[in-house]
């Protein structure tokens, strides 16, 4: 789509776009390019320029079982938190969309968790799920040692999944509700005339019509769980116990800034970048097919 009426002062056009281009060149394209370069080179031990090593860094990364652990943890984390939060959000949106008395209240409150910073969510959940104080610790009173995210990897993993899912429920809810509200009422009413009950209409009419939104949200949630999980993991578990919650971003941070191994961190970044680019491409395919009924 192009404008029929445009301005012709090209100097002005250049001046207007220059700040943005400068910023993204300096803080986006150059670093991304540099990550590529670092991934295929090694820093010379006594300074000087980097040495070309080809696939060596990737081989080092891929032959490390700890790396595959972090990939496994990340994928498991992404899938379980996404499934949990989308499942809850779609249920809530379907029932709020019935517009019974008071439905406005939910619209105002369900998305609140999304306004929080990931480390704030992490800190709250760390307290709530702490084994010796807080909310969940009561179960240890009844069955001693049943719950301890500080020692049990599964418990810690459940904790970060719940934190991430809780944070994203509100976001997903907003999108589902918007999608549901863009379905014309007449469609549902026609279903009702044909004798379909409320639940039948939800399953056979409303859910199929919001699948584009569902696909879009799946991608957004997975990407977010890769990227945003750092704050939650850093505050709640620090990647532990025994790396049970070490997600990919956390490992990159750890290898790059604690271990000072830029090349290994860069190679891992590239893998993560490719993963996210792939997801984004999938997302654009579905965005193109997104349906608007309004």
């Amino acid at each position, binding site marked *: 789509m192009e404008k*029929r009426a445009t301005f*012709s*002062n090209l100097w002005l056009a250049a001046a207007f776009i220059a700040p943005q281009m400068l910023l993204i060149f300096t803080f986006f394209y150059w670093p991304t390019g540099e990550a590529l370069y670092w991934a295929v080179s090694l820093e010379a031990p006594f300074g000087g320029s980097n040495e070309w090593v080809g696939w060596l860094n990737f081989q080092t990364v891929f032959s490390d079982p700890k790396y595959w652990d972090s990939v496994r943890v990340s994928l498991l984390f992404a899938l379980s938190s996404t499934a949990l939060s989308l499942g809850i959000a779609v249920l809530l949106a379907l029932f709020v969309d019935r517009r019974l008395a008071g439905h406005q209240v939910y619209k105002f409150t369900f998305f609140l968790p999304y306004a929080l910073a990931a480390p704030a969510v992490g800190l709250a959940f760390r307290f709530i799920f702490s084994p010796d104080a807080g909310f969940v610790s009561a179960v240890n009173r009844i069955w001693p040692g049943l719950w301890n995210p500080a020692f049990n990897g599964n418990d810690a993993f459940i904790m970060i999944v719940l934190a991430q899912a809780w944070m994203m429920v509100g976001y997903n809810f907003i999108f589902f509700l918007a999608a549901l509200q863009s379905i014309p009422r007449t469609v549902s009413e026609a279903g009702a005339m044909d004798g379909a009950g409320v639940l039948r209409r939800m399953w056979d009419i409303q859910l199929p019509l919001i699948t584009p939104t569902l696909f879009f949200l799946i991608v957004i949630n997975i990407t977010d769980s890769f990227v945003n999980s750092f704050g939650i993991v850093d505050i709640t578990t620090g990647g532990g116990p025994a790396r049970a919650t070490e997600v990919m971003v956390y490992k990159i941070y750890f290898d790059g800034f604690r271990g000072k191994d830029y090349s290994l961190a860069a190679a891992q970044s590239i893998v993560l970048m490719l993963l996210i680019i792939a997801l984004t491409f999938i997302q654009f395919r579905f965005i193109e097919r997104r349906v608007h009924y309004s």
Partner: protein
Amino acid sequence: MVERNPILDTFTHALLIISLIALLIPFWIVFVAASHDFHTVNQVPMPLWPGSHFFENISTAWVQGNFSRVMLNSMIVAVGVTGGKILIASLSAFSIVYFNYRLRTLMFWLIFITLMLPLEVRIVPTYAVAADVLRPYREILNLFGLSIGLPEWNMLNSYSGLILPLIATATGTFLYRQFFLTVPDELTEAAKMDGSGPIRFFLEVLLPLSKTNMAALATIMFVWSWNQYLWPLLIITDQAHYATATMQLQKVVPGPVFGDPPIWNIAMASNLIVLTPPVLVTILLQRWFVRGLISTDK
């Protein structure tokens, strides 16, 4: 809506109310924990009703976390990112949409691609650039054999380091472009006929028209930048001067001393302090926030 179904209606109300309570419980627990003294908060099971030490804990946490300073820092960063983003996004979208030059499609795609890779995945090299911002330009000049001595500009431990890399994304530009494309051509033609140049048209026609978009973008960007965690954690080592609010949360988690019971009441009070501004913004500007979420599509 269409028919009466009392059983399902009761179920709907029950489901929604239970979910509402479940979703809000974490907020309540944080608040309750922040209102008890050290001894009570560590009881198992913890009390579910607020105690009387709320303001005492908040003021202890405020002093301990140096919040007078860090809240100001977070505010500067959030306002800086929000303002900078709106300015840069609106200008570049204006350039792409309203000027006719060959490179504009390329420019658009160059900006658009930045949506794909969030800061967190290119964190290591971005950190290296922030440590010496002019290095890319120095290396480019070197490539052409020009050795002009560009000064070193270190962005670590500075507001510009906290703000500028966060602005370098396409979120707002895309939003503005979409909006500008919906502005009717007749408006531009009328303005040109009346002798208005591009700057005047931008300031007096486009900006007032895009108020709604601006508000939506501003709420989203404010909350997003306030909640940044990894980036400030990396580039700020001068904690006394440049720490942001979210960074303080790392310090109130249980200490390294083994067997020391964590001071949960103060930790939760700090958490409340940090989460209040974004929560307030989303509640007060709820309409814009939701609108922004949906229209930026991230």
